[in-house]
């Protein structure tokens, strides 16, 4: 077994490496994923870059002036209309993500720990309403919350009120209720997944070491399900900011959100650069806030000992 090392290396290293790479896992994997990747680049990355570019331009009627300017951002940030809309949108999306997550957690917990053999059925039941047309679900809430709606009819029928109230519809709370309902499934699923991943013996170990149900929930289950809570928050909060159907249908003038303004800039008002600047600002702010929320949850989860 004492063969000189140089006799073994017969293959020219340069050619060898090249052939190896082409046959390698990396090359095959990248090759296989490239059609999808290219599609996403063309229809997602390039468009978003273009929006960012547009946000630095100016539009004079039909002509776009491509000299760099921050004017659009100045308007987006300082104009009280847009500033208020953005603030309200962020507030609504924070409320919605809070309520969806808080309401969804017990359900996810119930299915994961007490679902037994029917876990799949419960999850299926939870997902069905999500698959029905979003427009129509919002419509339905309008029917429920309206002046002549189901809620008023029920309240009067029960003798709680004697005349219909218009307090339920066309305001911020109507938007929050509708959105909380719309995103429920998106909050339940990630939390459920993270709960499922928890090794049940950890909970038994906590019990063995003297923790009661409440304490072992707070010390083991809750912190270990933090990743699920985080993805639920992200998956609910960011898209919610951009919703314009719900505010338009049930929000009234109190419930208008930033997306309605963006839509207007790309529609009737036809000021694309301003619309682009509003979009970019919205994205930036919501991402920053989401990051802050995520950080808070993570720190909180780590604090628990």
């Amino acid at each position, binding site marked *: 077994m004492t063969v000189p090392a140089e006799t073994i290396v017969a293959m020219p290293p340069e050619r060898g490496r090249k052939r190896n790479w082409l046959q390698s896992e990396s090359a095959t994997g990248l090759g296989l994923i490239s059609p999808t990747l290219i599609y996403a680049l063309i229809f997602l990355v390039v468009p978003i870059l273009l929006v960012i570019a547009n946000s630095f331009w100016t539009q004079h009627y039909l002509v776009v002036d491509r000299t760099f300017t921050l004017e659009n951002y100045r308007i987006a940030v300082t104009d009280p209309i847009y500033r208020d809309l953005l603030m309200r949108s962020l507030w609504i999306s924070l409320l919605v993500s809070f309520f969806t997550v808080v309401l969804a957690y017990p359900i996810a917990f119930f299915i994961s720990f007490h679902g037994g053999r029917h876990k799949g059925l419960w999850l299926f039941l939870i997902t069905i309403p999500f698959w029905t047309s979003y427009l129509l679900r919002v419509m339905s809430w309008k029917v429920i919350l309206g002046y002549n709606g189901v809620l008023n009819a029920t309240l009067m029928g029960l003798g709680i009120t004697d005349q219909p109230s218009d307090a339920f519809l066309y305001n911020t709370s109507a938007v929050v209720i509708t959105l909380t309902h719309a995103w429920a499934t998106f909050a339940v699923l990630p939390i459920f997944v993270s709960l499922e991943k928890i090794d049940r013996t950890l909970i038994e170990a906590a019990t063995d070491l003297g923790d009661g149900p409440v304490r072992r929930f707070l010390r083991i289950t809750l912190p270990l399900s933090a990743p699920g809570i985080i993805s639920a928050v992200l998956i609910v909060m960011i898209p919610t900011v951009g919703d314009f159907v719900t505010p338009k249908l049930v929000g009234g003038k109190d419930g208008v959100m930033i997306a309605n303004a963006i839509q207007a800039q*790309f529609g009737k008002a036809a000021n694309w650069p301003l619309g682009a600047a509003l979009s970019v600002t919205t994205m930036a702010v919501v991402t920053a806030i989401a990051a802050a929320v995520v950080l808070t949850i993570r720190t909180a989860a780590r604090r628990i000992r």
Partner: protein
Amino acid sequence: MTALRKMLPSWLTAYAVLYIGFLYLPVIFLPIFSINTAATPKFPLSGYTLKWYRDLATTPALTDAAWNSLMVAVSASLLATMFGICAARAITRYRFPARRSINGLLMAPLVLPEIIIAVSMLLVMLQLGLNLSLITVVFGHVLICIPYSLSVLTSGFEGFDRSLEEASADLGESPFGTFRRVTLPMVAPAIISSLLVSFTISLDEFIMAFFLTGTDATLPVYIWGQLRFAAKLPGVLALGTLLLIASVILLTIAEIVRRRASRRTQNMGGLIA
């Protein structure tokens, strides 16, 4: 403490039932008011009729929109699933640089405000001088269907034991033969599931279609147009009921197919994973 332990599940069960009630509340009013004689949806119900359903069939704008939606949904689900298959296979089977970031990019439409995706695509289409049409809607729908397709397919492919393909090669089968005789039959349920889920998403999708379509309306765009007219509401509710039934049927099939497959690969997953 033992009392609490015993009570917890029953409290939770009660909560679960209430929560399901909350989820289904808006959904059940669609069919109820769609067979009500009154033109405005309110209680008490005034009587039973199928008039609104009969009217649907004789509205040409609606049948056109339905046809448009069908074409868009079929194309979008086929394309999204094809892209999904390539990506899911690459991600589950090979290790390559930037694998996680690419996966993140493909899943991104799930966590981006839809309006921003729609608006950016609109900008590109217009600045490229493309005419808005159902084709541009398909492009948009493919993009937002990819994350769903990818997660269904990835979980379907993950349960797939790599040694099955090796066993096939070991028994003399060529790479293509292995794909046809082992890989495809094993992942077929995930593919069907992905097609059905993408189809349903595209069928119900409004925002992308609203921005990206030209003169041709898809069903949700048509419904949006009708919502302005109070008199059209029962018709919309009838249409919504039909869409609801179609979605539930498709998703039930998708779920059954997926479960049968997961029993096979001993893998729990689907949209959940």
